[in-house]
C-alpha cells in the first residue's frame, strides 16, 4: 500500500467518530428538514406523502409566520447595533484607568455566565405590573402604570432589552482584547500630530477594530435567531404573538401542534437565513474588512 493511502486511512479513522456524530445530528437533519418540507405530516393512519410546495404555500398564507419574521427582524435590529455599541463603550471604559476597573468589568461580564432561563425569572419580576421593580421606579417619578409584558406595544421591547443585557458584556471582552493589542506607538504618533481623542478613536482605533466588529456582528446576528430561552419564561410568545420569534414558532409548531412537516419548512427558512449570513460573511464582508 502506498504512503498516501495509509495516511488517508489513518486520517479518516481519526475523523470517523466526530464525522459520524456530525453526520447524524447536523448534516442528516438539515437534509431531512429539506425533504420533509415537501411532505405532509404523518398522522395515525395516514403516512407522509409528497405534497410538493403545500407547506410553503401554507407558510405564505400564515399570518403568525409573517408576524414571527417581523418580530425577529425588529428583535435583530434592536439587539445587534445596541449590544455592539454598548460592548465597544464598555471596552473603551474598562480599558482606561477608571476607578474600580476590575469590579466594573466583572459587573459587565456576569450576565454572560448566568443561565438565561434563570435571569429571565428575575427580569419577569422586574417587569411585573403593579409591584415589579420597574413599576415602582416609574411610580416614584409619578409615571403611569404599564403592563410591560402584557401589552403588544411594549412586550417585544422588554425581551429585546433582556437580550442586550445578556450579550453586551460577552462582546465587550473581544473589543477589550483587540484594544489592548493596538500598539501604543500609534497613540503616541497621533498625539504628536495633535489629533483629538475622538479623531484618534475614529481614524485609528475604530478601523483597527474592524475584524473584531465583524466577528462580534456575526455572533450577534446568529444570537438574534437563537436566543429564545427568555421568551419561554417571560411571555411564551404572547401577548397575541407579539414576541413570537422564528425559532420559538418552530418549537410551537413542531412540539405544540406536532405539525412536523410545517415545522420542517419553517426550519428550512431559518437555515436559509443562517446560510445567507455565512454567505455575506465570507463572500462580501471579509474582503471589505481592514486586517492588521
Amino acid at each position: 500500500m502506498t504512503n498516501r493511502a495509509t495516511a488517508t486511512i489513518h486520517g479518516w479513522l481519526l475523523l470517523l467518530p466526530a464525522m459520524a456524530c456530525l453526520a447524524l445530528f447536523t448534516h442528516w437533519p438539515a437534509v431531512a428538514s429539506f425533504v420533509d418540507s415537501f411532505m405532509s405530516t404523518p398522522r395515525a393512519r395516514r403516512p407522509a406523502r409528497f405534497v410538493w410546495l403545500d407547506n410553503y404555500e401554507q407558510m405564505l398564507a400564515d399570518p403568525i409566520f409573517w408576524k414571527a419574521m417581523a418580530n425577529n427582524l425588529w428583535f435583530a435590529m434592536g439587539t445587534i447595533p445596541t449590544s455592539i455599541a454598548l460592548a465597544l463603550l464598555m471596552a473603551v471604559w474598562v480599558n482606561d484607568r477608571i476607578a474600580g476597573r476590575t469590579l466594573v468589568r466583572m459587573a459587565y461580564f456576569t450576565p454572560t455566565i448566568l443561565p438565561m432561563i434563570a435571569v429571565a425569572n428575575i427580569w419577569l419580576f422586574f417587569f411585573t405590573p403593579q409591584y415589579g421593580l420597574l413599576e415602582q421606579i416609574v411610580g416614584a417619578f409619578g409615571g403611569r402604570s404599564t403592563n410591560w409584558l402584557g401589552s403588544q406595544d411594549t412586550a417585544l421591547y422588554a425581551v429585546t432589552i433582556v437580550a442586550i443585557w445578556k450579550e453586551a458584556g460577552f462582546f465587550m471582552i473581544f473589543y477589550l482584547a483587540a484594544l489592548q493589542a493596538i500598539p501604543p506607538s500609534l497613540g503616541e504618533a497621533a498625539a504628536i500630530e495633535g489629533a483629538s481623542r475622538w479623531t484618534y478613536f475614529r481614524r485609528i482605533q475604530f478601523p483597527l477594530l474592524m475584524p473584531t466588529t465583524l466577528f462580534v456582528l456575526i455572533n450577534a446576528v446568529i444570537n438574534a435567531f437563537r436566543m429564545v430561552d427568555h421568551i419561554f419564561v417571560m411571555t411564551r410568545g404572547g401577548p397575541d404573538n407579539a414576541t413570537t420569534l422564528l425559532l420559538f414558532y418552530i418549537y410551537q409548531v413542531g412540539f405544540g401542534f406536532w405539525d412536523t412537516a410545517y415545522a420542517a419548512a419553517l426550519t428550512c427558512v431559518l437555515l436559509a437565513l443562517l446560510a445567507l449570513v455565512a454567505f455575506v460573511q465570507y463572500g462580501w464582508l471579509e474582503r471589505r474588512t481592514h486586517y492588521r
Partner: protein
Amino acid sequence: MSAAPRPQPMAATRPDPYAPKGLSLTLESLGAILLALIWVLPLAYAVWAAIHPAEYTTRFELTAPLTLDNFTRAWAAAPFARYFLNTFILVTMILAFQLVLGTLAAYALARQDFWGRDIAFALILAQLMIMPDALIVENYRTLARVNLIDTIPAIALPYIASAFGIFLLRQTFKTVPKELDDAARVEGASPLQVLMRVYVPLAKPTYIAYGLVSVSYHWNNFLWPLLVTNSVESRPLTVGLQVFSSSDQGIDWAVICAATLMTSAPLLVGFLLFQRQFVQSFMRAGIK
C-alpha cells in the same frame, strides 16, 4: 492556564497620551460605574429578595431581617438535588466526549495530509452556522426512533461533536513545532503516542479555555433539554427551574429568586473566584 500568568498588555510601561485625566477621568468613571450598577441590578435584586422574608420582596428597608428560609423552601419544593446531579452528569459527559472526539479530529486535520481532508474540514465547519438548536424537530425524530427520549444521553448526543472545539484544537495543534513531532517519531512513537505525549500537553491552555466555555454553555442550555426530557430522572437544572417556577403553586417571588440563585450559584461562584481565567477563556475561544 499556564504556570506563569500572561502579562497584562494593558499595564503599559509607556504612558498613553489619550488616557483621560482629571475631570474627564472622573466623568468616565462615573459613567462606567453607573452602567455597571444597572448591569448588576437584576442580580442584586434577586439576592435581596432571596435573603429576606417575602413581605420585604418589594419593600426596601435596611432593617429588614435576614433569612435563609427561602432557600430551604425552594430546596424542599422540588427535587433540586437530583437536577444538580443530572446537570453535573450531563456537562461532564458532553465535555468528555467533545474532548476525545475533538482531539482526534483536530489532530487529523492539523497534521495529517490525506485525501478528502479539506472536504471533511468544510463539512465540520458547517456546524458553526447550522447550530443544533435550529434542527430540534429532526433531531427529536432521530432520538425518538432509537428510544432515547427522556434520557441524559439524548440531551448530550447532538452536542458531542463540536465544530467549534475541533476548530479551536486544530488551530492550536498547528502551532506545535513540527520538529517535536518528528523527534518523537524518530524515537519510535506511534501517531497516537505522539498525539498524547506531544500535542495534548502543549494544548493545555486551549483545553481549559474550551472546557470552561463548554461547561458554562451546557449548564445554561435550555431549549433542547426541555424538549427531550419529561421526568425528574433526566431533567437538568435549567428545565427543573422552569418547571418549578411555572407550576401553579402561587407566585412566591422570594422562593423563585432563591431557586434562581441556587441554579446559577456554581457557575457564579466559579466565575467570581477565577474571574481572569473565565474572561481569558472566553476571549481565547473567540479569537482564533
